[in-house]
C-alpha cells in the first residue's frame, strides 16, 4: 500500500477509536456523576414506587455498562432512543434540525473561508502598514466578544435599527431557497464574524512565516510583484497550516452554532440541545452531544488527512 494511504487509514482508524472513547465519556462518565436521573425527573416528592417504576422503564436498574452497550448498539443502527420529556423518537426529531444546522453552518463556511484567506493574504502583503493594522485591530475586537454578544449587536443594528434583515430566523419545510437564505442571513453573518478573525490571523501568520524563506527573497529579487510572490510562492507552502486552521475553525462552528441558534430562535440542533439540557432530558442531550462531538472529531481528522496529503515529502517517498 502507498505510504500516504497507510498514514491516512491509520489516522482515520485512530479517529474512530477516539470517537468510541468519547461516546464512553458521554455515557459512562455522566452515569458516574452523582445525581439520580429518576429523582431529577420526578422531583423530590416522588414515591419510592414511582421511582422504581421509572427506573425499570428507563433500564436504570441494569448496570451502566449494559446500558452503554445497548445505547451504542442503538446508535449504530440509527436508533437514538426516545426523549424523556415528550416521549418522541429522537432520531425523527433530529433529522429535520440537523439539516437546518448544516445549512446554516455550511453557508457560514462557504463565505468565511475564502474571505478569511483573502484578508489574510492582504494583511500579509501590507504587513505592518495600515490595511494590516486595520484588519488585525478589527479581528482582535471580534475575538474578545462571545458569540451571543456579536449576535445581539448584529441583530440590534441590522434588524431593528436599520431593518435590513429579519430578526428571527424562521425556516420551515417547503420554504424556497431564496426565502430560506434571507431568513438565515443574520445568523450566517454572526458565525462568519466569529470564525473569520481567528482564521485570518492564522493565515497571515502562516504566510509571514514562509515569507522569511530564502526562495521568497529570490522571487522578490527576480522582480515579481509582491502579490504574485505571495500567491505563487508563499501561499502553496503555507497551505498545510492554513487548511489546518480552516478545519479547526469549522469545527469551532459546531460550538458557535449552538449559541447563535438560540439568539435567532433558529430551529436547529443547538436550540434542541439547549432546550433539553434545561429539561434534564438526558437521552436527548447524550445523543445530540455525541453528534456534535462526532462532527468535531470528523473535521479534526479531515484537517490531519488534508495536511498529510498536502505534504509533498509524504506524497513522493524516496
Amino acid at each position: 500500500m502507498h505510504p500516504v494511504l497507510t498514514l491516512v487509514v491509520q489516522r482515520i482508524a485512530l479517529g474512530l477509536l477516539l470517537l468510541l472513547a468519547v461516546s464512553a465519556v458521554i455515557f459512562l462518565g455522566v452515569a458516574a456523576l452523582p445525581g439520580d436521573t429518576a429523582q431529577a425527573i420526578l422531583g423530590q416528592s416522588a414515591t419510592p414506587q414511582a421511582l422504581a417504576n421509572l427506573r425499570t422503564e428507563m433500564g436504570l436498574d441494569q448496570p451502566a455498562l449494559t446500558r452503554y452497550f445497548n445505547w451504542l448498539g442503538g446508535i449504530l443502527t440509527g436508533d437514538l432512543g426516545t426523549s424523556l420529556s415528550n416521549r418522541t423518537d429522537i432520531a425523527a426529531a433530529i433529522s429535520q434540525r440537523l439539516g437546518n444546522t448544516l445549512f446554516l453552518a455550511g453557508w457560514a463556511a462557504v463565505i468565511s473561508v475564502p474571505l478569511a484567506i483573502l484578508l489574510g493574504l492582504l494583511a500579509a502583503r501590507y504587513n505592518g502598514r495600515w490595511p494590516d493594522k486595520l484588519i488585525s485591530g478589527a479581528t482582535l475586537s471580534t475575538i474578545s466578544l462571545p458569540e451571543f454578544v456579536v449576535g445581539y449587536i448584529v441583530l440590534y443594528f441590522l434588524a431593528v435599527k436599520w431593518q435590513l434583515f429579519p430578526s428571527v430566523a424562521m425556516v420551515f419545510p417547503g420554504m424556497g431557497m431564496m426565502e430560506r437564505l434571507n431568513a438565515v442571513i443574520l445568523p450566517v453573518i454572526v458565525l462568519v464574524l466569529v470564525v473569520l478573525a481567528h482564521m485570518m490571523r492564522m493565515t497571515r501568520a502562516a504566510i509571514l512565516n514562509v515569507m522569511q524563506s530564502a526562495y521568497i527573497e529570490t522571487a522578490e529579487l527576480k522582480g515579481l510583484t509582491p502579490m504574485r510572490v505571495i500567491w505563487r510562492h508563499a501561499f502553496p507552502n503555507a497551505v498545510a497550516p492554513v487548511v489546518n486552521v480552516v478545519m479547526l475553525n469549522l469545527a469551532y462552528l459546531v460550538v458557535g452554532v449552538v449559541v447563535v441558534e438560540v439568539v435567532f430562535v433558529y430551529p436547529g440542533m443547538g436550540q434542541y440541545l439547549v432546550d433539553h439540557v434545561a429539561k434534564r432530558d438526558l437521552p436527548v442531550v447524550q445523543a445530540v452531544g455525541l453528534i456534535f462531538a462526532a462532527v468535531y472529531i470528523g473535521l479534526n481528522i479531515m484537517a490531519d488527512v488534508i495536511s498529510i496529503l498536502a505534504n509533498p515529502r509524504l506524497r513522493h517517498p524516496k
Partner: protein
Amino acid sequence: MRIPISALVGLFFTGAFFLAAIFAPLIAPYGMAEIVGGVWDPASSTHWLGTDAIGRDLLSRMIYGGQTTIFVASAATVLSFTLGSVLGFSAAVAGAWVDQGLSRMVDLVMAIPALILALVILSVLPVTLTVLILVMGLLDATRVFRLARAVAVDITVMDYVEAARLRGEGWAWIIFREILPNALSPLVAELGLRFIFAVLFISTLSFLGLGVQPPLADWGGIVKENSSGLVYGIPAALIPAFAIAALAISVNLVADWVLSRTTSLKGGRG
C-alpha cells in the same frame, strides 16, 4: 520599565472592573433585586443606565452581575491553574505511564468541544455556583495541563533538575522549587487568556439559561433577561454585552503585554 499605553489602558480598566466587583454593595445605588422603576425606563439622573425588564435599576444589577461573573471566572481560573499546572508538572517529572495516562485522558476530554461537554454534565448535576466553578475549572484544566506539561518537559532535562534529582529531592521539591519558578512567566501570560475564556464561558452558559440562576445575576444572565427588548429597539441587553467585551479586551491587552515581555526575555521561546 516602560509600560506601553495599550497595557496601561488595559490595566486601568481591568483594575476598575475588579474594584467595582469587590466593593459592589458600596457602589451600587440600589439593591440587586429591588424594583425601583417602570419597565425599561430610559437612562435618567436617578437610574444612570435605565431600568431592566421588570423595573430594577440596571446599573446596580450590572455592578452585582459583574461581581458574580468575575468571582465565578476567577475561582474557575484558580482551580484550573492549580490543578492543570500541578498535574502537568507531575506528568513531565514522572514521565512514563503517569505522563501517558494523564496526557491521553486530557486528549480525550479535549476531543469534545468544552461547551458541549459542559452542557452534557450540567444536564445531570444541579446548577449551583459551586458546580459551575468545578465544571469550568476541570474542563479548562486540560488546556493548562497541555501548556504546563510542554513547558515543564523542556525544564526537566536541565542540569539543575538533574542535580536536584541526584541530591535525592522528592517530587514536591522538584515541582515547586525547580520547575515552577522557571515555568512561571509563560503560565502567568496564559492566566489572562484563561480568565477571559472563563468570563466568556460563564456568560455564554448564563445566556443559555444554564449558568448562574436567578435571583443571582451575572452579565450573561442580564443579557438574556433583557434580550426580548432588543426587537422593540431597547438596547438594555447590549450594556452587559459591552461590559463583557470591555473586560475581555482590557484583560487581553494586559496579557498581550505580559506575553511580549516574557517571550522577549526568553529569547522568543515561551
